[in-house]
């Protein structure tokens, strides 16, 4: 028994652990990658539907992008957008799709918190929570 163990190459323990760690990270990354792709395709579909509606409503109007007026209040906040989209306005539905798009990287951050908790990596749970706090601050209280 002891003879057999000595015959194995002398590798430091971390050399053996490292690929294992990577494999686990890779599994997590695959889930995250798919999550992001589904999120993007879903939001693109909503933007497309809203876009068709928007073109029916406003397709013949003149464009106004040369001067900056800023969006109306109903298209400037998360709650406003949801309300406006539910009333069936094309521009509201597009904006809702765009909000879902913005939410996909945020979902990735939330999923990473779970992954780091599972790996019992307290340091990175804290790091990830800081990132999440910054993202939510911007989205919810983004007025300076």
């Amino acid at each position, binding site marked *: 028994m002891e003879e057999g163990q000595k015959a194995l190459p002398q590798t430091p323990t971390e050399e053996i652990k*490292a690929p294992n760690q990577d494999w686990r990270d890779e599994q997590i990354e*695959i889930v995250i990658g798919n999550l992001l792709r589904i999120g993007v395709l879903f939001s693109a579909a909503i933007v497309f539907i809203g876009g068709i509606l928007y073109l029916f409503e406003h397709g013949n109007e003149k464009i106004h*992008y040369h001067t900056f007026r800023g969006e109306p209040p109903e298209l400037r906040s998360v709650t406003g957008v949801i309300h406006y989209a539910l009333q069936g306005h094309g521009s509201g539905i*597009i904006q809702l799709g765009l909000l879902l798009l913005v939410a*996909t990287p945020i979902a990735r951050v939330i999923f990473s918190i779970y992954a780091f908790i599972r790996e019992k990596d307290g340091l990175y749970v804290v*790091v990830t929570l800081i990132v999440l706090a910054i993202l939510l601050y911007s989205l919810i209280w*983004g007025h300076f």
Partner: protein
Amino acid sequence: MTVLLFTILIWIGSFLAGLLGALTGLGGGVVIVPLLALVFHVDIRYAIGASLISVIATSSGAAAAYVKEGYSNIRIGMFLEVATTSGALVGAFIAAHVNPSTIAIIFGLVLLYSSYLSSKPKEEHMVEAPPDPLATRLRMNGTYPTPEGMKRYNVYHVPTGFSLMFVAGALSGLLGIGSGAVKVLAMDQAMAIPFKVSTTTSNFMIGVTAAASAGIYLNRGYIDPGLAMPVMLGVLMGSLLGARLLVLARVKMLRTVFSLVILALALEMIFNGLTGRL
């Protein structure tokens, strides 16, 4: 111009930008703002809002493909995201308080740097030195697969990389771009992270960074649904197609052409900024 015609033209332009961006690896985001501002005379604030949205779409859309390569380091990514997201908040704040001409000039300078960077051959900055204590403490050192098996790499100069990433985030928030060029400077050159790891990690970070400024842009009314719709759909479809065509295309020639396009746009942005036309 009617909304319908405008939407179709913007979609085609964004599709081509996304296609070329993916084929050349330079990203389509950098040309969206000049395209909208210089060609379609869109106010630069609407332009950076729409561009930022397209940056999130390409980053998240490409993530699944990048994951298959399996080299990204989520600890490096997450740690540096603290810098890029807080930088993005600062950048988006500055965007609201400087005049559009200044934004155009800064944009032109960043384009000049991107064009210079893409004309230069890439070099690995691998350092043969004992592991950096801070990087070790932050568990950033890792391994990545090579033809000769798993290879270890160490990460260095964490504070320098962190500071540069703050700048990258600020530029992203100010200009509505992914700031790939500054991220290369921080991760490849300062922190000595191997390309395969830095490219995939950086793609993940771009979406999160852009999401940080997107909230502020939304609240400030920079994100116009009528404009962002064709830009997002065009860039996304173009970049997804580009990623598929990548194996077939002769990229070197395209890369040269695209960097010349970027150079021309850079000069035009700076000129228009200086003469106050934007």
